[in-house]
């Protein structure tokens, strides 16, 4: 960030564009019911929903719901990520394990978390553990798979270098494999973060544990349509914020990576 840059720095410009994109989206949304493309009884105009959302922002109960949802999200994502990293590094650094686990992983991955709800409730009751099980199950695979691809991307010369200097398996994981896989992992984390949020809300919605999901279910069954869209909007906003946080982390941990270095520009 040197002075020579234009007064509106690139970061400000990026932010401006991002906000522009969102404004555009709201305009389209506003127009859709207003122009009668869809009845406003089923899709209220954006302005109405935004007003409702602003109202929510002043309610303590709403923030309690947000906190509940974010707790399941954060816990679930953390467990899934740690588990996936441990499993991924173990499987990824052994050809035998990679081959032996392939069938099982591919069989388990497409099983929808939602289908596991009865089992989860049976085992854990309707406590937070049930929600966590669903969140963890769904987001675990995203991180694991990305990590496995990341590990496969290790540069042969870099790996040889490490080996020739006597770096053992663990040291290679720490100093070579991990940094190489990190960009893939970050993508996995961003994928998993959204899936975890989706599952936290879906689980609340179906199991009925407190949180945004339960409120969405209530507003749906209560016919409070603008409230429902306001909550959906809140969910989307949380997604945007999570991504923002992920980008900031990425900037820090991947400062050396071409995608962040930004050498390649069009």
């Amino acid at each position, binding site marked *: 960030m040197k002075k020579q840059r234009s007064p509106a720095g690139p970061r400000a410009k990026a932010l401006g564009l991002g906000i522009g994109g969102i404004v555009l989206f709201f305009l389209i949304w506003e127009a859709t019911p207003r122009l009668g493309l869809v009845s406003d009884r089923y899709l209220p105009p954006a302005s109405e929903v935004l007003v409702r959302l602003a109202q929510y922002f002043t309610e303590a109960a709403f923030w309690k719901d947000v906190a509940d949802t974010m707790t399941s999200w954060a816990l679930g994502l953390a467990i899934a990520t740690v588990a996936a990293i441990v499993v991924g590094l173990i499987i990824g650094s052994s050809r035998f394990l990679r081959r032996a686990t392939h069938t099982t992983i*591919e*069989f388990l991955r*497409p099983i929808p978390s939602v289908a596991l709800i009865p089992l989860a409730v049976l085992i854990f009751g309707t406590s937070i553990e049930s929600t966590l099980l669903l969140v963890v199950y769904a987001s675990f695979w995203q991180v694991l798979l990305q990590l496995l691809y990341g590990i496969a*991307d290790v*540069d*042969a010369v870099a790996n040889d270098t490490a080996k020739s200097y006597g770096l053992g398996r663990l040291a290679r994981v720490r100093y070579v494999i991990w940094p190489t896989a990190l960009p893939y992992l970050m993508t996995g984390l*961003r994928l998993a973060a959204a899936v975890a949020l989706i599952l936290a809300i*879906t689980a609340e919605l179906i199991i009925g544990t407190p949180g945004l999901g339960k409120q969405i279910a209530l507003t749906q069954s209560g016919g409070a349509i603008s409230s429902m869209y306001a909550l959906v909007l809140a969910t989307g906003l949380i997604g945007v914020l999570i*991504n923002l946080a992920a980008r900031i982390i990425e900037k820090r941990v991947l400062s050396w990576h071409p995608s962040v270095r930004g050498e*390649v520009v069009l």
Partner: protein
Amino acid sequence: MSPLKRVAYFFGLPIVLIVLWWALSFGSTNFFVPKPFELAQTLWTTWIGERFFEDVLPSLGRLAVGLLFAIGLGIVLGLLIGSTRWLRNLLEPMLEFFRAIPPPVLVPLLMLLIGVNDSMKVAVIISGAIWPVLLNTVEGVRAVDSVLNDSCRSYGIRGFARIRYFVLPAVTPQIMAGVRQSLSIGLILMVISEMFASSSGLGFTIVQFQRNFAIPEMWSGIVVLGLIGLGLALIFQFVERRVLHWYHGLKEITHDS
């Protein structure tokens, strides 16, 4: 690898797990907990026959269409967004917004906008399966090798040729990681799309079984999902081997540990 070894790798761990499961569920009388033998039987009686053609095949058809669109759109949008910074800045917040919306609340909206039909279900599949491809493509494009990029520029390789000969192949390893994720997510969303506004399909049937306490049948449906996932993974592996043979050659020289 010898065919025998291949078979051993393929079935080894699953067999171990099934035996373990059998042992653990041996004494159980719980209604909701499936048992391997019972399940295998149910699998056969439930899914072989009419139901295969009326529920499974149409679902697979929608899945195939959805996945093709998700992958195609994901790659095209990913290439565009990844290589154009202003476009990325413009769209990223919006895309992240949609990515965070749970399908169960997205479905009613799609129903409203598209209608109660196959297109809606395909749209649900696309709405979830596109993200891994899109994100991986965007990140891959952002990380292309700078020297290769310079080579292209200095030889005047631009526009479509640049995409075709440089960006796309360079990003393919990462796209493949995304596609592999998309396959299973697409399958999950196929189920979710059939939970609403539906009257047939694999997902619909599984949910029906669940609601009607046909628990072994429900588990057998989940096994079918797993098997389809496995099938997709095998097809995928076959394609990946061909598309990425250069990459495996490049990387596996020393990966034999």
